[in-house]
């Protein structure tokens, strides 16, 4: 079977998820590779979520929140940005390509932008090929 990348996306309830919803209700066509998980705020996205997604086979992880200044909880998206920058550095050190992990701001009215983002990311992941974590982990457990 040919390689079809999987993107796990964490979208905030107030902006990004509504933006994705708008892409749907506007009947926009975009790549079906995304698996959306709705969270109340991008500030809710813990590094563990991102690492677990990679460990369980996601080829890319996308985190989307409200534009800076627009967070429903005032500063959740800033907290997300700070964590994201840190985990990006870690993920890079662990040999996972930087382009596999993205943070983007999507407002409730940006359905078009969301669709383009998913298309773009899918294209990048197609070029990168499947994530190699599981192959690395396969040799990891000796317990029968």
């Amino acid at each position, binding site marked *: 079977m040919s390689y079809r990348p999987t993107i796990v996306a964490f979208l905030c309830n107030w902006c990004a998820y509504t933006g994705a919803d708008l892409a749907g209700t506007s009947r926009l066509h975009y790549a079906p590779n995304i698996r959306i998980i709705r969270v109340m705020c991008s500030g809710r996205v813990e590094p563990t979520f991102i*690492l677990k997604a990679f460990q369980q086979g996601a080829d890319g992880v996308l985190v989307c929140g409200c534009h800076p200044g627009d967070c429903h909880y005032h500063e959740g998206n800033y907290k997300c940005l700070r*964590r994201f920058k840190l985990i990006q550095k870690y993920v890079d050190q662990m040999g996972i390509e930087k382009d596999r992990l993205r943070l983007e701001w999507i407002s409730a009215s940006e359905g078009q932008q969301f669709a383009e983002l998913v298309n773009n990311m899918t294209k990048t992941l197609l070029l990168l090929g499947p994530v190699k974590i599981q192959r690395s982990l396969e040799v*990891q457990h000796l317990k029968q």
Partner: protein
Amino acid sequence: MSDSSIPNPKIKLAVYWGSACGGCCVSVLDTHEKLLDIVNAADLVFWPIAMDIKYKDVEAMADQSIDLTLFNGAVRNSENKHMAEVLRKKSKVLVAYGACAYMGGIPGLANFHSREEIFKRVYEESESTLNPDKVRPVEEFEVKEGVLKIPEFFNDVYTLNQVVDVDYFIPGCPPQSERLVEVFTAVITGIGLPPKGSVVGALEKTNCDECLRKKTDNKVIKRFYRPWEIEDDKETCFLEQGVICMGPATRGGCGVRCVTGHSPCRGCYGPPPNSTDPGAKMMSSIGTMIDADSPEEIDEIIETIVDPAGLFYRFSLPGSILGRKVL
């Protein structure tokens, strides 16, 4: 042999080291005069650092004949793996003793490299190596007396739990000896033993809860300092001074010894309960303390953390979510 005149027959105790530095074995000796109580209550049947007993003697023991085995060290090669399997079979209770057996420990940092990279460095590139023929160790070598064998060096370092079933985990590098006495007493008396798979000899809270340094809730960090770059005022929380301290992502139980000695916590007691990955926990916690809103400024502050992977996973890389650097 049944001897009903002895109400509490001595239990059989084994201590073994896998890929370890020997510090865990010394921590058993550090029980000082309590060691005599231990020896009173237990027969030491196997302890390579202190006694001359061969592997074949252990292999010849009956299954489940050892009451308690403290296995320290990670699993790095086929010899470690073999002994882990033998001791699992021979022991009623197998304890992963110390950070290496529990999470991979310092030897686990080798998971940032592959076996090939390590061999190349050690046998070809290191400054003190003179090896023009690029000779590498081979696992089997035939001489006229027979075949010589050395253990296979694995590509990965494993925690004990990734190789065999483990009953309990005692964290620490090394574990605090007082805690060992408590655990040991629980095993002999059978009182107060938690369910299988528990971390014992440590607390349910983080090190910060135990720490006596002055802390406020509002931690803001403009840049990070390595411990030698700043003069510690010896009373304010290290994180508030900008020095990375693993306290928020580390289980308490050591008595906050490092911080009491004016050195930041390095995280040897592993993640607190309900958290599997100390580094992720630490990134989550530190992320909120960074005092900047613009991506450029955040980048500048994060730039001052030189090696997040090595720092946050100093004792726990093989046991973490990603486990090793992706090959």
